[in-house]
């Protein structure tokens, strides 16, 4: 895949087309995020009421050229969608780190101990899974002040259950490998075994799960914001934008399309990355077994 015979330029590739595409799509998002953080000041989100609800491509005397049009307060939708990047990506990003860390830790604890600790962990996880996620998130976010950390930590502390289940199953498989037994019988400490044998073995699984959960959490964040329980009302998170667009759906459909397409773009890129990593690790596992 690394060689492209027809052209002289070598296109770098990871070996998985899905992963390549996903990374390129995600790269666009990251560039936009950097541009927003570095070059755009505070006032780019300001609206100009005379230019409200203008369609994409409108060139206004005050606000200038609006490539994606404007919303009901005359705010430029392109800048607003960029302004939403730190909110939407940041919240689900922090949440996905929580999910990966908590899920892996709990899964490993359950897999490592063969006594009552395992039973407790499994029962606890099952109990958590039994609770409806969105309702739980609604309750917690309603209890606290709306904000970045409330939302991200709430999602992170609720969504790890599925990850811990997968890690548990995977780690139990790894723990039965003879090289783990060998290490133990050579006198290698259990921490060394966990860090140098088990965790590297879990790495592909953790990466795949993280990519998928990033996408899932992005949608959940939007859903919570849409329901009015996510990011603060004035924050330009994509869910808030969708929520705003509802009233103007008929006269300004671009208000809905712009954040919706952005969400779809991000989710697809993350899913492609997840699929790509899974594909690569399957290939590699085959190579290892042969």
């Amino acid at each position: 895949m690394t060689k492209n015979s027809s052209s002289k330029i070598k296109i770098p590739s990871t070996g998985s087309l899905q992963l390549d595409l996903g990374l390129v799509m995600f790269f666009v998002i990251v560039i936009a995020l950097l541009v927003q953080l570095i070059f755009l000041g505070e006032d780019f989100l300001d609206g100009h009421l005379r230019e409200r609800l203008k369609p994409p491509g409108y060139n206004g005397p005050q606000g200038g050229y609006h490539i994606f049009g404007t919303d009901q307060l005359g705010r430029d939708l392109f800048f607003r969608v960029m302004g939403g990047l730190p909110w939407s990506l940041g919240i689900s990003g922090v949440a996905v780190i929580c999910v990966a860390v908590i899920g892996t830790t709990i899964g490993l604890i359950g897999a490592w101990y063969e006594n009552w600790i395992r039973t407790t962990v499994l029962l606890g996880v099952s109990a958590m899974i039994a609770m409806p996620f969105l309702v739980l998130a609604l309750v917690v976010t309603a209890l606290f002040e709306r904000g970045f950390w409330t939302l991200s930590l709430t999602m992170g502390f609720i969504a790890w259950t599925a990850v811990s289940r997968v890690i548990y199953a995977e780690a139990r498989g790894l723990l039965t490998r003879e090289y783990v037994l060998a290490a133990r019988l050579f006198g290698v400490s259990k921490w060394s075994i966990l860090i140098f044998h088990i965790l590297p073995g879990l790495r592909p699984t953790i990466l795949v799960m993280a990519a998928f959960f990033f996408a899932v959490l992005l949608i959940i964040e939007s859903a919570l914001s849409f329901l009015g329980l996510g990011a603060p009302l004035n924050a330009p998170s994509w869910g808030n934008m969708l929520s705003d667009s509802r009233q103007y759906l008929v006269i300004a459909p671009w208000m809905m399309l712009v954040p919706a397409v952005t969400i779809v773009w991000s989710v697809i890129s993350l899913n492609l990355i997840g699929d790509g990593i899974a594909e690569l690790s399957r290939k590699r596992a085959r190579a290892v077994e042969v």
Partner: protein
Amino acid sequence: MSDKNLDNQNPNPDYLLEAQDLKVTFRVPGGKKLHAVDKISLGVRPRETVGLVGESGSGKSTVALTLMRAHEPEGGKIIFGGQDITHLDQKGLMPIRKRLQIVFQDPYSSLDPRWSIRRVISEPLKAHRYGSRREINKRVEELLEQVGLPQDAADRVPSQFSGGQRQRIAVARSLALEPEAIIADEPVSALDVSIQAQIINLLRDLQDRLNIGLLVIAHDLALVHQISDRIIVMYLGEAVEEGPSDDLVGNPQHPYTVALLSATPIPEPGGDRKRIVLTGDPPSPIYRPKGCRFHPRCPIATERCTIEKPPYIEISKDRKVACWQAGEMDAPRDLWALKDVPLPEGVESAKK
């Protein structure tokens, strides 16, 4: 009949590694007990090779893992270098782990597929704080040479090696800390026949040079006979016969040993012998037969065998057998053929 064991309860000063009346049971669903190992006694002297033979499910591997303290024995003692290690905790076991090593059956599973060979071999060295990185690297090079692998093997990963080469790597790893004894749990049964001889030669050669006590566990009596000084035959968790290698193979007393021997192929074209084919599977170690454990499959079982368990008694010097009908069954005629099984062509000895 009282089942007085003839072993004294003090550590035998001759033995480097010794098991006394070792008993291992596992709990299975339904509150039953699985008797994996039932009162096995064995000993390995320094520089001696002992073979432990039995079919699948006879408890051989459990013996190996219990000796390594991976399973907790329900009864009996494990003695290493005169020290009772049966109940040592992990910290107390550390010096023992350095002196007693294991080689596993499957070199595809016993090496971490993500690790370089250098890292694999140096793992026990690092666990026991062998020395600086340079000293460790030097030791790895030495070990690779000892097991006949090229120096550039160190920076490759296990998937780039064949099964035989991987087993050499596993052997190198077990030699790393210069152990006094190695337990080899079915060291060749996952390998091709031609490679088996290479690994067996390697073990034999290394043992000669490095003065290691070796406990080889296998299901192939002919193979164990090639390498061992003494052989112990196991059936359903119990020892049924033991003796010096040539004597046991040339003059088997227990019908099970005879059956194992008759299952060995003859390395000559057209060669054939009267086969003693055991019918049925080995009985379940959860519901074991009464009397002699072997009687349901024994071709010469009598009434007595179904009721009374034969004691494990010494019949001559170093020979022990547990059978009411010991020696009653004819050994296959052409056993001489076993004495010197030629190596397959093209197999070179692992000598330097």
